[in-house]
């Protein structure tokens, strides 16, 4: 079962993309959604507040999604937060790199609401199951 009270941080440099992801999340049933424009903005939010899931783009100015992932995994207070990559970076080496640095799942743009929902379910099923 999905915990609809999850607090989710959506990270993308395109405001339209953030809005699309937020809309889909709202349709799934999540209402506790925050957003950040890049890795730097996301990190400072993550350090101020408690979040249950990060949904991040890869290709962003200042700090990329991959660098954000690395920073989260390297931070003792944050390294338990699941990270879902939602990105157009869909080459094999990108996916493998993200896996190497501990991504929890990977969605390729453009995506459907179903795919996003499935991936979020999978992340939290895996957590409760294992």
């Amino acid at each position, binding site marked *: 079962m999905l915990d609809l009270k999850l607090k989710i941080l959506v990270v993308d440099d395109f405001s*339209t993309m953030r809005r699309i992801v937020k809309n889909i999340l709202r349709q799934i049933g999540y209402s506790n959604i925050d957003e950040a424009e890049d890795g730097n903005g996301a990190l400072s939010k993550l350090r101020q507040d408690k979040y249950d899931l990060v949904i991040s783009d890869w290709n962003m100015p200042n700090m990329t999604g991959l660098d954000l992932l690395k920073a989260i995994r390297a931070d003792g207070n944050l390294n338990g937060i699941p990270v879902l990559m939602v990105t157009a970076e869909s*080459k094999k080496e990108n996916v493998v790199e993200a896996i190497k640095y501990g991504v929890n*799942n990977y969605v390729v743009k453009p995506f459907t609401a179903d795919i996003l929902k499935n991936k979020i379910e999978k992340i939290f099923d895996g957590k409760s199951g294992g």
Partner: protein
Amino acid sequence: MQEQKDIDDVLQLVGFTVGEENFGINISEVHEINRFEQINRLPDLPNYVLGVIDLRGVVIPVINLAEKLGIQSREVTKDTRIIIIGFNEEKVGILVDSVSEVLRVLSNNLEKPPSIIKNVNSEYIRGIIRNNNHLSVILDIQQLFKDYNPLLTKENTMISPEIKSVAREETSDPAIEKIVEVTKAMADGNFTQEIDVNLYGQVGEIARYINATLKKLQSIEPNIAQASDKIPEASMQLSEITKATEEATHSIMGQVERVLDSQDVILHNLFSIEKGNGVQNSAGEIKQIVLDNKETLLDIITGLSFQDLTGQKIKAIISLIEEVEKRVLQLIVTFGLKDKAALEVDSPLMDLSGKSALNQNVVDNLLEEFGF
């Protein structure tokens, strides 16, 4: 000032061989080192003068160093060199069997020549250095040729008239000065001048190459300037397109969100109708929502016309890029740059064609492999 002294004490020597012997001369005396070329033999010369060569139009005598030193020289091979040295404000070539290296030695390491050196008259010798496994004899060129009388002057009738004329024209300073002037202007970005002198030999060749390069630069420069002038405009247009599409997307998304929210109201009313509560009210509300939504959906369709506007702008930018590409290609062709690999630049653009991009299924399979 110890350091300064050390620097002064370093001798730079050009090492060479004649026969089985190793020699060195001070690098400051060497003008250049050339491969062996045809030596024109002239009559009535001392036996250690082999003849003359035409060095870019200047006639230079060539000395047989082996003969002068009284040692056995080898035959001419691919290693044979003519070292051009300065002597009494003239240039003299010396024939050696090979040039080995440039040596850097401390003058302290220069040993006095032993009183008896086989085959070599010690008055020419500045000293001896040990280098790896062999000894090199450092020659004093000025001493070596102190008895040498330049037999060859410009007035010498033994030199053919053609050689004389070449020598005079090629060494004329105005030509060199013009070349310097034009190449300097090129370095400053001025490609309008040309070298209008008629020259022979290698200096003439240089002048012709410079003129050919100038012609190419002249033809390409306005093209490049024209093309690059348009680039800032193109990038401005692209920024505007990004802004316009962002606005349009937000506007459409706002409308869709309204329709989506209204679905919940419709659902709520349908539940009421299902239960038979306030059927007429609910039906009226649903009717109004559907009418509103129809209008909103039509607005969305008209809103999508941004694709047409941005599409046209993008097409204009594409033709500009093609224009720039054409001019750059012309540059490549004009300058004959053949190494395509060297011209390939890593593009920061992601692959938008999607051909090499993985789709979600492939990514999922990949994730599965890693135990996701």
